[in-house]
């Protein structure tokens, strides 16, 4: 699988403030790439560089192996975080205008708009003015305008802000459908739960530097720390068993529910070897109800990495 975008050692300064320092990224084709980081980390600057709105002081960006050039603009769709539409312009007119600026012919734009307006159930909005629409409604139109010219690379900056949960889901499905069709997607956010659901790859940017990147599953594996969630069903000898368990293993977060005789706790196995623990249970005839490895959430990884960075 080839790469849609390569960012090579890109730096950008605004006056005395560094927005990006030697950032390198590789974004494979046909994946959803999560660009994460706290506010002011440099995400938006990086996205603007990819969109050729600003230019890097140093470093290069390659689009499908070629140095980024103005003709690539028509292959990129960008939904900025700070987004809006002309308030006093009609929906259809405005969508046509923006589509034509992306290089579509008027006729082609009209056909595709009809398709999308039907698909998102907004066919009757064509002659409405933006100021008559709610924020969520305007967001739908912006989404359509972003994807209308069938770009190879889509960049969404906080795409779900302003949507109610139902419409957010709709848009999420559309994003997944676009990925199915072969589009590569950069997804910038600080809402981690949507990252878990959508992203294949992630990169974490903090204070202008990239501090972490890779496949989401690999990143998670790297951050797991051999913790397991255990649920046991105990018989009458429970107190003795619990004492023994505490003596033999690293146990924390215990919860005992008396009437059902259930015992839940977190177990840490320093070397990741589960055989000792399982053998102990087997020998003592303890009934094991749940045995699950605890994999850190993106949110935890995010916070942990940034805290480490700040204390380092």
């Amino acid at each position, binding site marked *: 699988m080839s790469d849609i975008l390569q960012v090579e050692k890109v730096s950008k300064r*605004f*006056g005395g403030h560094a927005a990006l320092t030697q950032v390198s990224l590789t974004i494979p084709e046909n994946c959803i790439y999560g660009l994460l980081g706290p506010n002011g980390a440099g995400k938006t600057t990086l996205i*603007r560089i990819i*969109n050729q*709105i*600003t230019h890097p002081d140093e470093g290069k960006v390659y689009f499908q192996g070629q140095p980024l050039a*103005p003709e690539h*603009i028509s292959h*990129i769709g*960008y*939904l*900025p975080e*700070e*987004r*809006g*539409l*002309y*308030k*006093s*312009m009609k929906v259809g007119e405005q969508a046509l*205008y*923006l589509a*034509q*600026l*992306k290089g579509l012919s008027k006729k082609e734009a009209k056909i595709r708009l009809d398709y999308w307006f039907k698909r998102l159930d907004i066919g009757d909005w064509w002659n409405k003015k933006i100021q008559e629409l709610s924020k969520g409604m305007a967001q739908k139109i*912006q989404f359509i*305008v972003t994807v209308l010219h069938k770009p190879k690379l889509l960049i969404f900056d906080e795409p779900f802000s302003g949507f109610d949960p139902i419409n957010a889901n709709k848009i999420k499905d559309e994003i997944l459908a676009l990925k199915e069709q072969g589009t590569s997607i950069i997804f910038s956010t600080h809402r981690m739960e949507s990252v878990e659901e959508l992203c294949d790859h992630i990169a974490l940017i903090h204070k202008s530097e990239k501090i972490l990147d890779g496949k989401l599953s690999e990143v998670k594996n790297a951050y797991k720390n051999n913790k397991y969630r255990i649920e046991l069903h105990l018989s009458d000898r429970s107190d003795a068993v619990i004492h023994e368990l505490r003596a033999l293993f690293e146990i924390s977060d215990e919860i005992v529910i008396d009437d059902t005789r259930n015992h839940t706790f977190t177990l840490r196995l320093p070397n990741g070897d589960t055989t000792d623990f399982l053998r102990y249970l087997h020998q003592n005839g303890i009934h094991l109800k749940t045995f699950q490895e605890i994999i850190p959430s993106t949110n935890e990884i995010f916070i942990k990495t940034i805290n480490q960075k700040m204390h380092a």
Partner: protein
Amino acid sequence: MHKLKLIIKREYLAKVRNKSFVVMTFLSPILLVGMVMLIVFLTKVNDNETRVIMVLNESDYFSNAFHSSGNVSFVPYNAIDLESAKDSTLKMGIYGLLYIPQAETLEATANHATFYSKDNPVGSILDRVERIFQNRLQQGRLQDLGVSAKDFAAVSESFEVKTSTFEGARSLKGINEVKAVIGGLFGYLIMMFIIIYGGFVMRSVIEEKTSRIIEVIISSVKPFQLMLGKIIGTSLAGITQFVIWILSASFLLLVAMFLFDVDMAALRGASTEGNNPVMQMAPIPSSNFSDVQLYAQELMQIPWVLLISSFLLYFMMGYLIYSSIYAAIGAAVDNETDTQQFIFPIILPLMLAIYVGFFSVFSNPNGPIAVGFSLFPLTSPIVMLMRLPGGIGEGGVPLWQFLTSIILLLVTFLGIVWLAAKIYRVGILMYGKKPTYRELYKWLNY
């Protein structure tokens, strides 16, 4: 190019369809014509008010000096003392009373004359009374010196010097002023256009910023394209508006003149003299026929082609310079209230150009101040146009000055548009910052 055309079209339509723009376009000519009619009407009313002044003359002099004419009537009192004259004047509601007491000499009489009125008297009436006294005094002194009234009349015959160019053609006094007025009109037009439509450009940029559409658009087009398209689209809308204004205002004015039977000749003297050379050719009372014809000839000799083509040239460059500054300001701020500190420095050179132009070009089109300001690029579009009706070359603007001013303007134009585009490019993506000049300077290096 295709994208630029799209932007121009959108900006033009957005402007032209705007309700307030439509209202202004069609209402302004009516307001303007209404104003002119009102002024004409008020002037007439003002002129028509006749003031009566009672004259109580107890002296031996001034018996035939006071003639009623124009809007002042002098009515004599006979055989009445001052107190009762004052009383009756006040009771009858008459404007004033002029009292000339009995005295030994003409001078003493004049010195003791008093004008009584209820309020402070109008300057023009006092002037008139004073002039009568002055004439009479002058005449009296001349008589004392032994000059007869007839000789005096012969002496006071007015004299006018004939003016001529070196080529021998008769030249006209006042033609310089007329020419400067014509140039001034063009200059004034440029200033108004810059202030009105530059402001439109600025507001349109602010609108894009506050509605947050700007980033969506500049991910498809270059900021410079957007700025240029915006300026061109807005000015096309402005030109449309101007053309509609001029056409409908002149039509309405004609209709109004016809309906109200306004004296064309009277108006011509007051309003922009010779703005329209054809009008000057209209039949005029024969007494000054030859003069008028000469003025008309002179006006025809004004290099109209040069004037209009340089008007277009200076207009375009001047407008582009200023409107790109306006665009940069719009990009730098978040809302219109923050624009004040930046707008003043723009308006300053424009105002300076107009006033310096009117004062120095009128008195001497080729004086050092006029030349200086017609070369300085921020004022040259206005000041140079005021000088150009004199032509280029001999008698008019030296060719080197004309060319220098155009080259300076062109260089400044490129420089300012480049700078403004830089500020614009950075400014449109900055939110929530109230910019300072220092900040703007920093943006130039981003």
